[in-house]
């Protein structure tokens, strides 16, 4: 057996590649300051800054909520509520935490409540579906043949079911880690628990997912 150097597990963390992580440190710090600065401007009554925050965080937030509750309509309602709460809290805003941590804490809280209350009963989303007032939805560009689409849907169903079968908190941790590329500490801050508790949640979740999804090529 080939041996290994002892690992610096503190360095083993989230999703982006090592080089990307190193290179993005300055950018992340700038983003933190930028979001907080925008929110402080919102606090001072600047509506344009709120529009910028909405535009920047709308998509990841809705995607996270959709993967949590697996219902697009409910996900968008919850996302609206998140932004409403952000706006409502503007006068008391203090940049003590990363803006996205605060945002996802509100979102996770709403999603967990929704799941607990059983309001996320799965509705069938259709590609032809329009919003309530008839405005067409923004569709991602998916250039697939019918056969590819069927295969994709079968694969997607399996993934969605595997995620849905996870306990809600494990689900939130996996979604933030995998899709939002959050580090353990930030996930811990969102879920209001320790780093070690987050690791425990994540590794149990990934172990469960390995059991359900590892057969997929």
């Amino acid at each position, binding site marked *: 057996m080939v041996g290994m150097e002892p690992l610096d597990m503190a*360095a083993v963390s989230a999703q982006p590649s090592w080089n990307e992580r190193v290179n993005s440190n300055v950018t992340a710090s700038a983003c933190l300051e930028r979001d907080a600065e925008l929110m402080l401007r919102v606090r001072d009554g600047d509506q344009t800054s709120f529009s910028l925050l909405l535009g920047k965080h709308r998509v990841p937030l809705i995607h996270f909520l959709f993967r949590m509750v697996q219902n697009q309509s409910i996900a968008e309602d919850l996302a609206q509520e998140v932004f409403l709460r952000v706006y409502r809290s503007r006068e008391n805003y203090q940049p003590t935490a990363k803006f996205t941590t605060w945002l996802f804490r509100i979102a996770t809280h709403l999603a967990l409540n929704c799941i607990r209350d059983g309001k996320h009963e799965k509705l069938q989303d259709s590609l032809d579906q329009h919003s309530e007032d008839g405005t067409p939805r923004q569709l991602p560009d998916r250039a697939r043949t019918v056969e590819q689409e069927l295969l994709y849907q079968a694969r997607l169903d399996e993934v969605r079911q595997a995620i849905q079968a996870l306990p809600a908190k494990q689900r939130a941790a996996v979604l933030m880690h*995998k899709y939002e590329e959050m580090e353990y500490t930030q996930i811990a801050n969102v879920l209001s628990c320790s780093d070690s508790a987050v690791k425990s949640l994540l590794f149990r979740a990934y172990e469960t997912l390995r059991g359900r999804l590892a057969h997929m090529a």
Partner: protein
Amino acid sequence: MECPRNSGQEPELFVAYAAESLPPATSTALERHMAVCAECRRTAEDQRRVWSALDSWEPEFISGDFDRKVYARIAAEGQRSVRHANWALRPALPIAAVCAVVLAGYLLREPAVPQNPSPRVDMEQVERALDDIDMLNKMGVASQD
């Protein structure tokens, strides 16, 4: 220099390896180890498949009017706040009206009848009493005579 499965580092290590977030040196060392450790190789491959399966879950579509709905909810809440403030003031209006009526009534009421008679009335009574005494005195003197 032990296998990660024995050192308790396995879960975190293989998740980070699948996410390509390991430091380059650690990643290289793990790959060397996996070349001779079938168990770790299989675990890493399983985790990579999970990662790949999760990657296939593409984002869903978003309503074109999402922002409009957010602003509508903010505006509705603003109006609700104004209505709530008006509603909160509503009970105060009749109370204020009642207070105003009471105050006006107090200010416009007729002067109260004085409890003590005026000094002028006292003097009249005194004069009458003195006249009565004089008259009685005269009558008494006349009768004595």
